[in-house]
């Protein structure tokens, strides 16, 4: 398990953070996601053998946001 921070600069409200956290239930290998609208970032704890950065960024994009490794 590793913990990585992604910058998501196009969040507009606290609901956006909730939407991003819902990726917990979608992405395989994710243990926990903590997204913060105040910090415009999401911290994701995941199994790197099951999930890549690109997959995370793609999943975030599907939710309507743009993520990049911080």
């Amino acid at each position, binding site marked *: 398990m590793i913990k990585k921070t992604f910058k998501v600069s196009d969040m*507009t*409200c606290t609901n956006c953070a*909730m939407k991003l956290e819902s990726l917990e239930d979608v992405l395989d290998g994710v243990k926990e996601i903590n997204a913060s*609208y105040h910090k415009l970032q999401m911290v994701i704890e995941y199994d790197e053998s099951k999930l890549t950065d690109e997959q995370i960024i793609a999943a975030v994009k599907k939710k309507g946001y743009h993520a990049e490794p911080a």
Partner: protein
Amino acid sequence: MSKEQKPAFDPVILVALGIGFITMAVVLFAFQNQGDQALDISAGTGLSGRIMVAFITGLTTGGLSCLAVQGGLLASSLAHQIEQDYLEQSNLPKKHGKKQQPQKRSSTALPILLFLAAKLVAYTLLGVLLGWVGSFLTLSPLTRAFLMIAIGIFMVGNALRMFNVHPVFRYFSIEPPKFITRYIRRTSKGTDTFTPIFLGALTVFIPCGVTQAMMAAALATGSPLTGAAMMFAFILGTSPVFFIVAYLTTELGARLEKFFMRFVAVAVLILGLVTLDGGLNVMGSPLSFQNLSRSLLPSESTTSAQASSLQSTTSDGGLTLSVGNDGYFPQTLRADANTAIQLNLITNKTYSCARDFVIPALNFYQLLPDTGSVQVDIPAQPSGTRMFFTCSMGMYTGMIVFE
């Protein structure tokens, strides 16, 4: 998914229209009875006025603001349900040569109603709690002024956040604890009857900016009954807009959301400035919009002069101020400098918040009787002094000029 599968007349729209009409009826009833004691539940403090403000705030901005925080939850739950309905319908056996009768989508209206009903109950209970907590805090006019100014700043900051003016304004939104958002998110996946009830009740933990301001106002009332009434009125006001917008969100997605957010931001900004101005009035600040305009604008001075000519002076040289449902008359009184005076406050079937009379400079605060008179002793003031008076909400104002 073909268009034929869609119900010809959506029961959701019917219910939305129903709620809309009920809301309009409540508004009309309240306005008709504004001068009636029937609405003045506490027989004091202009409660009907506060309730109306709460209701209209909910109706105009609260519902739209809640959309940003809570609308998505309901919409996602509904979208799933609608999808299920369509799937069930598309699986029905088709009769050759006959048009399929559309099934009624009654299951969509129920969760919205349950959601809104649970939300109404939960926030009313929260209003009781806030009012009860507030009852232990004795709020002097000055404390109330600070609270109003703080709420005003919070609302203005929230509006500027929505306009994306500067990153610092992001901190004007409150992020709910993670365990709550996680629980709400997971609960929202269900589609049974209890899910919308749960969701509606749990929205108390993720209030929008306008709701938070209303919660602060409920706290400031210091009365469980008033707090509950205010929150009830506010959430009732949000319901029609929330209902329609939540429904539209499922239909039109994010396209409308951007437009609504702009509208909400403008409305919150205006309300924030009004609250801030009210706080300055209660503080007796000459910098409030009303006090500034009264002091500076020539037209206002003319009006004041005309008004002051109508003021009656009592036999002992005191001043008389009429306290009506629509404010104070005259708004500007003139008194001799360096002489102690008596101010006679006259009420006559006055039920508005004008009865909550405050003179900030004297730290004077009194709830006037709805009909009667109250005397206030004002010590001698040097020439040029402008002593502001206001209602406790900073809505109605006036001043005494010593010369």
